[in-house]
């Protein structure tokens, strides 16, 4: 399904975090969203999930409006978020964390499909999730989102705090997820790798889209971004 964001405005009290942002993510596509801290990246994702105050604009999933829907209903409509900081349930087991992902699943099926993508977490399925390493926790968070069998996957800085080797594991997994036909919206700080992976990458600043980059711009990412903000 296609996720469409049209003229989105997010406002916290007097602070406008997102000002008229529009983008579209089609099935089998990764769209990157990069920009400095406070640019409105996380606010955009939270607004899509119905967890941030939307002051204007529209959010649609295959044409059906999601604006004003409850967070859990957005999740049940087929949008899954891998939140910033992973937000796994440390006191629950790995398997219980994955079973939580089933809460939003409408199609039949269990948690076993995701082990193919992330074999490492199958080994630890009976362990407490808090005992996993940071990289394993990130894989668990993505796996938990995939268990819901979503059509759209939102990721909020999945590479944060990970060793370069693990970042590759995560980004490879995202490429595989794209192959499955999901629409992926990836918020990242690692600009160059994101531009290289994504079909399109938008640069966000002060709540507005400033620049669009394609995979061929990857090697020049920093130069292009710097030139734009200069």
């Amino acid at each position, binding site marked *: 399904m296609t996720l469409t964001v049209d003229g989105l405005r997010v406002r916290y009290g007097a602070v406008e975090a997102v000002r008229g942002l529009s983008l579209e993510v089609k099935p089998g596509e990764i769209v990157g969203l990069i920009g400095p801290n406070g640019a409105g990246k996380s606010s955009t994702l939270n607004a899509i*999930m119905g*967890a941030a105050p939307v002051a204007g604009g529209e959010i649609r999933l295959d044409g059906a409006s999601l604006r004003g829907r*409850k*967070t*859990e209903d957005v*999740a*049940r409509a087929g949008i*899954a*978020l891998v*939140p910033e900081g992973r*937000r796994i*349930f440390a*006191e*629950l087991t790995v398997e*219980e964390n994955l*079973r*939580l*992902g*089933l*809460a*939003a*699943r409408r199609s039949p099926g269990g948690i076993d499909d995701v082990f193919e993508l992330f074999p490492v977490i199958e080994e630890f399925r009976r362990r407490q999730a808090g005992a996993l390493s940071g990289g394993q926790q990130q894989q668990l968070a993505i796996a*938990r*989102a995939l268990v*819901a069998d979503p059509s759209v996957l939102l990721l909020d800085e999945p590479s944060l705090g990970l060793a370069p080797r693990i970042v590759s594991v995560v980004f490879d997994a995202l490429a595989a997820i794209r192959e499955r036909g999901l629409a992926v919206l990836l918020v990242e700080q690692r600009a160059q790798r994101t531009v290289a992976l994504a079909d399109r990458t938008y640069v966000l600043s002060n709540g507005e889209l400033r620049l669009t980059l394609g995979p061929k711009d990857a090697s020049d990412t920093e130069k292009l971004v710097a030139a734009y903000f200069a």
Partner: protein
Amino acid sequence: MSVSWQTLADALSLGGIYALMAVGIGLVFGVLRLVNFAYGQLIMAGAYAIAYASVWGWPSWAGILLCFAVVLALSVLMDRIVFRPLRTHSPAVMLVATFAIAFLMQSIAVLAFGQLGTVASSMGPLNQPWDVGGVEIRKIAIVSVVVAAVCLGLLQLLLTRTSVGLHMRAASMDFRTARMLGVRANRVIGGAVLISGLLAAVSAVMLTARNPQVTPIFALDDTIIVLAGVVLGGLTRPIAATLGGFTIGFASGLLGGALPTNQSQYLPTFLFAAVILVLLVRPNGLFARASAGAERL
């Protein structure tokens, strides 16, 4: 001080009942971050149901059924009218609101049933002693220990083996993330309120059997002690709340039975002094994980 078997059995049964009440309060706290002061008044309402059923000559099972119906209906009503509209407000407002509900229910009871109270005589047989190996023990003491153990066992199964239980546990750890995963807030809260109500109804039956004189302040003192126990144990985890409830119930049952009256009347002083001491050392409770945050904003 000397401890008889009867005192020990009584203390165990009080610990069991208080454990049920504690986990009832703890479950709702988990998902709503709300300490329900009106929990005791739910039990009081259930006790009146039993008492009036007995006055009307109903068989005791019908009285127990009525008790469950009344307590559950009131729990759901409380959730709909008070908890849900106030869910996003400050803990202080919610706390005072449940205080208001408690006060309100108590004054309704005074107005409707009078200050003096009603006797639930249908529960009388449970107060008869049983002869256990030459020692006389009140039936209710044994019954309540068994019932409490069964209830806690069932609850444990529900929390760990069902998806509703899993959702409830997740919601009490991190409500926001749980909702992002598709866990339905209203269903989880409704479930917690319902289970909490069931536990209140069970506690009402047990407390009525222990003390058939039902007044508007029935279970008030018990609830206060349980609240202390819940905080003592730790509110954020059902197990911790249960242990706290059991501990304080057992301790007060034991001390209340074993100390002479001129000392046991100071029981609340000792209990609450202990509670304050524990809170100073471990503000999140004795059995809470060190990292557990006590409040969600």
